[in-house]
């Protein structure tokens, strides 16, 4: 108003002093009516704008947002606030492993519900699971925030909007979704209702993911499926309790697949059994048996400068104090080192361990990481069980995989460290996206020992206990392991852990595949056998064969140099029929 006054005064001044009183009055009248006219015009334009122009453009906006905020503060315990920006997890090829999706939940502000009876009737029509009475009760409660239905289907949102009650509104929340389902649950992990990671990568990278940063894992969902399928097949066939396995790149320790069976649907962790939640691969410690002969044999050749033709007397069981060490596949004769390995002679391996000596064997196992908790991206890892104190008898038993309990992951890492040429590798699950190839320069064995072990592993498959792991053209090598489980402090020869660690292609190792089956039962078509050679070796063969076609690895031609790998060891093997 003040501004108007001044304007008018100025206008009068403009007209000059000479104007007559009448002119002055007239002038003022014109001025005032012009002013009012202008104001009316402004109002008219604005009214037209609001009523006509903007009416079609402005969507209806309720003030319910504030109500939700109030309600949120009031009932925080009921409203799940999930980090909206929690980032996705992908496999090495960019396949989605975990993502965050928006879901909507329906609530009512009962102050804005004008016809509770009709609204309740309509809602029950849309959500048949709701009862009319309960909904009506909620709508008449007089509260400003009442949940009607959580996580509703997108189609139903529209139907609810068509009821036309301004008091019905939606609150959006965010849920974690795992497209691969149970297949990847033990590696990727799972979260609670607020999407906080409770296990696996979801747990160990909780903050990283909540900050909105994506993760790429070293896994390959295709290999993961193959490994899981083949372990499951063995577990089902041999009526076993459980199974586990891993596929690892020997050059850098990257885990391409990791399986622990039984597993569960990560969307419903609440409904999972204890043994389903248990990750055998990283949390289970087991005496893994003869697969450990790889390490005692490597220690032997690393420490003793001897030729392959060195012999061990396995004609009699060894007696140390109360313990007797026997052979499962007893040959009862003097064996060369390759024969000890391919027949999986406990006596021969114990003698190798004895020759290496307690201190050196223990130090060697430590270098391979077998005696320490593994440093791994999944934080649920178990500490190996190591004899305290470590006596000489422990050296003998540890040579063939008894008395020392480790996780299957430990074993895969240690085997990779030897067959890759002798460089220590650590298992890892998160892809290093800088593209730098990470390989350590820490040597655990010499290149020569590594080469000998490669030949021995190939021999086990061509001539020994692991023949069922062979896949023509792929130079699979490996070692069987059949360990009796300890039940109530005693070894139970009915309950076994049967395993096979396979490596291929043996002339230039690329992958290590470890499969173990817990408590397999011998079947008719395996003549009652449930050893590593019968249970796990065929599963490894099937895995290699499927992997080759997925990854497009061509086989070596028959009779070519790679295909002949390890043949030179045959001269140390006396030809006899070999039992499985």
């Amino acid at each position: 108003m003040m501004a108007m006054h001044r304007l008018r005064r100025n206008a009068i001044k403009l007209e000059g002093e000479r104007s007559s009183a009448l002119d002055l009055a007239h002038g003022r009248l014109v001025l005032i009516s012009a002013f009012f006219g202008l104001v009316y015009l402004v109002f008219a334009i604005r009214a037209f704008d609001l009523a006509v122009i903007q009416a079609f453009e402005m969507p209806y906006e309720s003030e319910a947002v504030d109500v939700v905020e109030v309600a949120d503060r009031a009932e925080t315990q009921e409203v799940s606030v999930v980090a909206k920006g929690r980032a996705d997890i992908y496999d090495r090829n960019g396949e989605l492993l975990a993502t965050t999706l928006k879901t909507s939940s329906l609530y009512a502000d009962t102050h804005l519900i004008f016809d509770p009876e009709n609204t309740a009737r309509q809602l029950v029509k849309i959500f048949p699971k709701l009862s009319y009475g309960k909904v009506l009760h909620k709508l008449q409660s007089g509260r400003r925030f009442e949940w009607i239905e959580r996580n509703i289907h997108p189609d139903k949102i529209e139907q609810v909007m068509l009821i036309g009650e301004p008091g019905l509104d939606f609150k959006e929340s965010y849920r974690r979704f795992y497209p691969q389902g149970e297949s990847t649950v033990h590696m990727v992990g799972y979260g609670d209702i607020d999407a906080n990671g409770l296990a696996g990568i979801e747990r160990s990278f909780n903050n990283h993911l909540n900050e909105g940063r994506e993760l790429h894992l070293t896994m390959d969902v295709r290999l993961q499926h193959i490994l899981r399928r083949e372990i499951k097949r063995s577990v089902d066939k041999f009526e076993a309790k459980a199974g586990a396995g891993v596929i690892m790149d020997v050059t850098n320790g990257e885990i391409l697949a990791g399986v622990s069976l039984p597993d569960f649907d990560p969307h419903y962790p609440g409904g999972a059994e204890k043994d389903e939640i248990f990750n055998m691969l990283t949390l289970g410690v087991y005496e893994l048996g003869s697969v450990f002969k790889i390490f005692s044999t490597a220690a032997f050749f690393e420490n003793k400068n001897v030729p392959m033709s060195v012999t061990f007397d396995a004609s009699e069981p060894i007696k140390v104090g109360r313990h007797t060490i026997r052979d499962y596949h007893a040959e009862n004769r003097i064996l060369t080192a390759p024969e000890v390995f391919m027949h999986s002679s406990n006596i021969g391996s114990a003698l190798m361990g004895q020759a290496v000596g307690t201190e050196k064997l223990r130090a060697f196992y430590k270098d391979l990481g077998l005696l320490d908790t593994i440093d791994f991206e999944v934080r649920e890892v178990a500490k190996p069980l190591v004899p305290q104190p470590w006596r000489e008898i422990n050296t003998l038993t540890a040579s063939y995989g008894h008395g020392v309990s480790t996780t299957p992951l430990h074993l895969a890492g240690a085997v990779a460290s030897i067959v890759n040429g002798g460089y220590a590798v650590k298992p890892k699950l998160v892809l290093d996206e800088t593209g730098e190839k990470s390989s350590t320069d820490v040597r655990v064995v010499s290149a020569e020992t590594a080469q000998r072990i490669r030949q021995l592993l190939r021999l086990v498959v061509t001539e020994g206990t692991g023949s069922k792991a062979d896949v023509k053209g792929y130079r699979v090598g490996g070692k069987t392991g059949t360990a009796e489980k300890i039940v109530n402090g005693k070894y139970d020869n009915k309950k076994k852990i049967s395993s096979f660690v396979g490596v291929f292609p043996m002339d230039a190792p690329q992958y290590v595949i470890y499969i173990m089956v817990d408590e397999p039962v011998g079947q008719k078509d395996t003549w009652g056998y449930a050893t590593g050679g019968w249970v796990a070796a065929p599963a490894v063969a099937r895995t290699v064969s499927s992997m080759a076609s997925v990854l497009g690895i061509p086989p070596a031609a028959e009779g070519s140099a790679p295909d002949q790998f390890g043949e030179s060891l045959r001269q140390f093997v006396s030809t006899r029929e070999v039992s499985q």
Partner: protein
Amino acid sequence: MKTLKPRTFIVFAFAALSGALLLYTSQNVQDAQSRLESYEKSIEGEKEKIRLLRAEWASLNRPERLERLANEFLDVLPPAPDQMVDRDAANFEIQPAVEFEIERDFEPVLQPVSAGGEVKPSVAPPAPKHKPPAPSREFREQEEKEAKDFNKLIGEIGGGT
């Protein structure tokens, strides 16, 4: 009208004009803002839809599911190891092309290569069935049991209530 000089009219007209302009501009800004908001909202919505579709795509492309579908509907199997050859090492024999007349004379581009060894043909693929295969009953049962409907799963997960 003596009192109202032309200059005054010009001033008023100018004032009225700038008022109208101001109104017009502010309306434009408001309008643009509301459009911007609605675009941002719809972008957010589209992004969310894309996320949902990507999740569904990943869920439908689970290797396990594809394998089940392939076993049921396709007459093909993954190649067996002995059906694969190394492209670089294999000595493919290129069949000589059928002779035909070429008017201008230039060197033929494809020269028949004499191969060192024979390439064994892989196992003949089974003859394709010509009628579209109908899913077996076991498959349907398996599918119903195992293939959890994506939307149903999305509706269920979290289990807030």
